């Protein structure tokens, strides 16, 4: 649980028919000063336009996150019940992870009130104090909390780490496991993921996995995107030397990875030469012919894969562009310079070589590398 989102105080605020907005309970007691509350109360017990929305207000070095609730019914004095259960943090704290919890709690309390008058009943309302204490303690200590409210209701809340949104997975991307595949607990994952697992080997691209595992293409894409989100796989696309990291452990890792099975360990010198031999425009074929000796003990596919995973090589894609107007190249809409060979091959079912031949012979097409 990051120290960033430490909750300093939890408060429960209500609108009293004659006193107006006030803090009914807060843990720890007396945390929110009279002055602070006066400053922000209009964002805690709000006008109708701001009700039922998550509101964060910063003042006097504190951040208050709350969700003002309004339940309308003629049984309440002034025809409505207004309350707000919120968190107080330091003004500089990162509080995104707390927001869904505040919203969830406001929903829980609303339901409890609608079902059994939990809040409007003075007796049951007092139960809020131990609830708020427990929430404060456990969310700060463990990042999660389970609270039994009464015989039939329990509240579960958990702080979820925010991760960056994963990239869109294309049909021609190749997923590869970042960690050892054996450590992967198959049963934790959904059925689709389980079905495609065997086909993720760092060489098969998405479309191929879909075909061989007999799983619909979009499902494969989504499953792999999910694995990407959790950092279980990474996508590689292949080839060009950018940079070689001078790092002992990376070197060790590399040699272990690229050595052909059954052979003596490859030498760093050979591997280094191979990587350096990859210049813009080099194809794997070129590499194999030029460095046959170095590749004696090195699996070139693994070599490339390792380089991609570690980010020191990058693949150059070929993008065909139609150079003149009104020609009859087929399929025309793909030759805009935005679609790579990979994509075109995938979409049209042509092989790399076929596409290459076709485009070589077409005088109207120029091929760009990027």
């Amino acid at each position, binding site marked *: 649980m990051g120290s960033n989102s430490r909750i300093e105080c939890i408060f429960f605020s209500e*609108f*009293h*028919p*004659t*006193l*107006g*907005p*006030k803090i009914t309970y807060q843990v720890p007691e007396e945390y929110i000063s009279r002055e602070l509350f*006066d400053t922000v*109360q*209009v964002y805690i*017990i*709000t*006008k*109708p336009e701001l009700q039922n929305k998550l509101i964060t207000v910063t003042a006097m070095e504190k951040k208050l996150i709350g969700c003002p609730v309004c339940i*309308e019914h*003629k049984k309440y004095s*002034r*025809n*409505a019940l207004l309350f707000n259960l919120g968190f107080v943090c330091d003004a500089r704290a990162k509080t995104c992870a707390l927001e869904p919890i505040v919203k969830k709690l406001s929903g829980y309390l609303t339901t409890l009130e609608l079902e059994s008058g939990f809040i409007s009943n003075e007796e049951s309302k007092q139960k809020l104090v131990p609830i708020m204490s427990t929430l404060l303690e456990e969310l700060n200590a463990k990042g999660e909390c389970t609270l039994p409210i009464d015989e039939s209701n329990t509240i579960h809340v958990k702080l979820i780490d925010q991760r960056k949104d994963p990239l869109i997975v294309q049909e021609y991307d190749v997923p590869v496991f970042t960690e050892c595949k054996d450590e992967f607990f198959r049963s934790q994952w959904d059925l689709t993921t389980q079905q495609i697992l065997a086909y993720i080997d760092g060489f098969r691209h998405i479309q191929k996995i879909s075909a061989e595992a007999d799983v619909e293409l979009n499902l494969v894409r989504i499953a792999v995107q999910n694995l990407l989100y959790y950092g279980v796989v990474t996508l590689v696309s292949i080839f060009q030397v950018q940079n070689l990291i001078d790092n002992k452990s990376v070197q060790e890792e590399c040699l272990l990875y690229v050595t052909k099975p059954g052979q003596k360990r490859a030498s760093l010198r050979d591997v280094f030469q191979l990587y350096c031999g990859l210049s813009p425009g080099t194809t794997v074929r070129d590499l194999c012919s030029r460095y046959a000796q170095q590749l004696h003990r090195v699996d070139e596919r693994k070599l490339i894969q390792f380089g991609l995973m570690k980010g020191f090589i990058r693949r150059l894609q070929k993008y065909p562009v139609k150079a003149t107007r009104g020609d009859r190249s087929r399929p025309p809409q793909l030759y805009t310079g935005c679609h790579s060979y990979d994509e075109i091959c995938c979409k049209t079912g042509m092989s790399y070589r076929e596409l290459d031949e076709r485009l070589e012979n077409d005088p109207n097409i120029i091929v760009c590398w990027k």
Partner: protein
Amino acid sequence: MKKKVLLMGKSGSGKTSMRSIIFANYIARDTRRLGATIDVEHSHVRFLGNLVLNLWDCGGQDTFMENYFTSQRDNIFRNVEVLIYVFDVESRELEKDMHYYQSCLEAILQNSPDAKVFCLVHKMDLVQEDQRDLAWSSIVYQLIPNVQQLESNLRNFAQIIEADEVLLFERATFLVISHYQCKEQRDAHRFEKISNIIKQFKLSCSKLAASFQSMEVRNSNFAAFIDVFTSNTYVMVIMSDPSIPSAATLINIRNARKHFEKLERVDGPKHSLHMRMR
């Protein structure tokens, strides 16, 4: 021309209810569903042409009141034309009420010393529509810029057509904004009663998707004519001389109409009459 009107008073004393009934065509029953006013609710009511009433309906709970006298003091009490303070006749906390009222007066004296102050005593259970309308009529009367001129013209008109009494109503709220009578009448509350009767009738008409235009009521003692007058007023003419035929009165009203419209326009924006509810 904008006039700021502060509506203050104890929580639950009926400020928002009154405002809704007078300016938003609520009926008393509707107001039972209103929620508490949070802090200050602002509304603009266009009244008699370019006169805009800037209503500040201030929530009366303790926390809000305290704020009005401290952090929001200048904002609330500056540039006030009229302060309407509402007392709840059934209040059990008279001392507290007086304390707040006094604080209001102090703040007004400091920030808007020329403001007019009205006190309304509200009784929540009884539907005292007459009293309410009378109160608001008086208040609004104070705000109309050309009221003397309106009255003198109305008097001339009444005398020319030999009417017993002539009333001018604001079109949407049906508050009496001007009147002339040539002799004492028995019922001092007749204005409010009439306002009320017509408002109810208007409401019934609107339920049938019809709009109220005019009315003529006759018996052996009098004839009363209620009709649209200028673009923002209605007129009511009472004739007790039975020899004067309706047609004559109606023609007179029609001719006067043009005059009053012109009257409004001649003096510029102050006099143009148009009511719009927001």
